[in-house]
């Protein structure tokens, strides 16, 4: 563990989640660090999406701790507050505002200080918006489509737009839920490129994926989940070599 000194972006400790009698996560502890792209992989039902739901406040755990930036207790915050605290989440299904233009989508995503809806409405024309939007449009490669309605974009473009919306927020922790599901090979390559560029010293990127090749291409570190518990943490190449991982996931 050479990166011991590196700061923790998100720390999950002793997490236990159950729905009625069904225990989705019996006990999970894990850490994602700034400056890293961290992949979370595992077969269906391993608890990957549940983990995301807990971090974003959608699901409340039965026990455990979730700390952002070493000190912010996310379990005490509401969903919008968690987002404002610096957690961005991309949904599995592209979710953008279809009836708004690409630019308007990005405008909505930018939350200037003070972050209140009232301030947002009053400061809509703030010049910082325009420059930041131009920056992000460029980054996600949708500069030409800025004034198109998001509903008319292709599937892949919608995914990028959603990532762009998250970038507008400058999140400390950026979580991507299966970002390349349903993408063409070309779109996957573009997305991999995009995700790599999301890497920043003040940001941790958490990627939840099925696509092993994609994770291998982008992730600095992976956690392999099985039935809600981590069975491996380390480099992807080592994961492939790990017998337990091979057994439950790569399998047969």
């Amino acid at each position, binding site marked *: 563990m050479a990166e011991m000194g590196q700061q923790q972006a998100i720390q999950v400790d002793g997490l236990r989640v159950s729905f009625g009698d069904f225990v989705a996560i019996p006990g999970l502890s894990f850490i994602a660090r700034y400056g890293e792209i961290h992949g979370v992989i595992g077969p269906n039902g391993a608890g990957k999406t549940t983990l995301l739901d807990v971090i974003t406040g959608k699901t409340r755990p039965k026990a455990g701790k979730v700390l952002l930036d070493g000190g912010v207790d996310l379990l005490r915050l*509401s969903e*919008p507050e968690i*987002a404002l605290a610096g957690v961005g*989440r991309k949904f599995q299904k592209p979710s953008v*505002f279809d009836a708004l233009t690409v630019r308007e989508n990005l*405008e909505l995503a930018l939350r200037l200080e003070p972050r209140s*809806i009232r301030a947002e409405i009053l400061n809509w024309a703030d010049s910082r918006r325009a420059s930041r939007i131009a920056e992000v449009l460029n980054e996600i490669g949708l500069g030409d489509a800025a004034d198109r309605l998001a*509903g008319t974009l292709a599937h892949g473009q919608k995914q990028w737009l959603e990532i762009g919306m998250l970038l507008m927020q400058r999140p400390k922790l950026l979580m991507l839920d299966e970002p390349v599901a349903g993408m063409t090979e070309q779109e996957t390559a573009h997305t991999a490129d995009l995700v790599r560029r999301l890497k920043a010293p003040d940001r941790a990127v958490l990627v939840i994926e099925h696509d092993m090749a994609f994770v291998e291409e982008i992730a600095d570190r992976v956690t392999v989940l099985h039935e809600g518990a981590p069975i491996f943490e380390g480099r992807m190449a080592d994961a492939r070599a790990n017998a337990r991982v091979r057994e439950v996931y790569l399998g047969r």
Partner: protein
Amino acid sequence: MAANDAVGRVERPGLFRAVAAAMAAIAVALPILGGPMADGPAGISPYFANIIGQIATFALLAIAVDLIWGYAGILSLGHGLFFAFGGYLVAMHMLKAGYVYDGVTPDVMTFMGWTELPVHWFGLEFFPYALILIFALPGLLAFAYGYFSFRSRVAGVYFAIITQALTYVAMLLMFRNDTGFGGNNGMTGFTKVLGFDVGADSTIVGLATASVVITLGIYLGCGRLMRSPFGRILIAIRDEEDRLRFLGYDTLWPKLAVWTLSAMIAAIAGALYVPQVGIINPKLLSPELSIEIAVWVALGGRGALAGAVIGAVLISALKFWLTGFAPDLWPFILAGVVLLIVITLPNGLLDLRLPRLRAAPAPAGGAASGAAAEVGQGG
């Protein structure tokens, strides 16, 4: 998790301006053609002016529903509640004013056997006070109900049905005599409104003109609001509320704001409507009226204020015309119109010239998983 059914961006500035211009033209023409030139070839009879005035209040009601359904994706099947609320308040104002200033004993006192008006009528003879109540009470009711519903994320079909249940219960309450609002008979026998004789032709034309002007004003104001960032936040809530929440917006407040605003607009519509029809009774609270309002909006096109106005005008004009000679036919026509729009024109009449943004009702798989997701959310 779009709680709303597919609505693209349907605002059309040209149409919006055309409808505004038409309303302005009517607002100008009405006092002239209904007043000094009433007997001329293009003259408007008081009867016809009255119908125009009523339809204007319906258009206002449609605007109110479009704000929350078309923009924020929240369907209310209970706007009759706020409409009637405004109507009852203005009726009480007129009766109280007649009683206090002109010594006219309201019928409602006679058949309720009251010797004086109950305490909740206190001060209603003062128009400014009545006006404040017309804004404040329906607004408060909407705020309280909206707060509890939105906070617990009651949405979609759940929300719609509960608004209807609320209205239904209010109707049952108002039908009772001991609720103190005239029961079954409601309130009628108004003599004056703001000092003018309600029966006079000039008052009828004046009220109709006022209705058109106020509707136009609110139409323009709401149009501006919906083009503002606030409107965009509402559209975002309609299309992907979860996404917006995860961008850090607490969607409770914008929803609550537009819901309360919408209720207040409906109350104003009711307050304009009642002096023109000369009666209010609990029938305004029947589920039918409330659903019909949603039908106007669905016909005209959700998410475009011009569409709402057009829908309200078309259907209520058709209703006025038809109920005159074939009242039995009306329910069939209305039902037919609803089924037709719902099945063939997801965005109402606006679909006729608008290329669809989203595919029409998708085949079962994907589409219904959306529905299922919504159930999960509502449930």
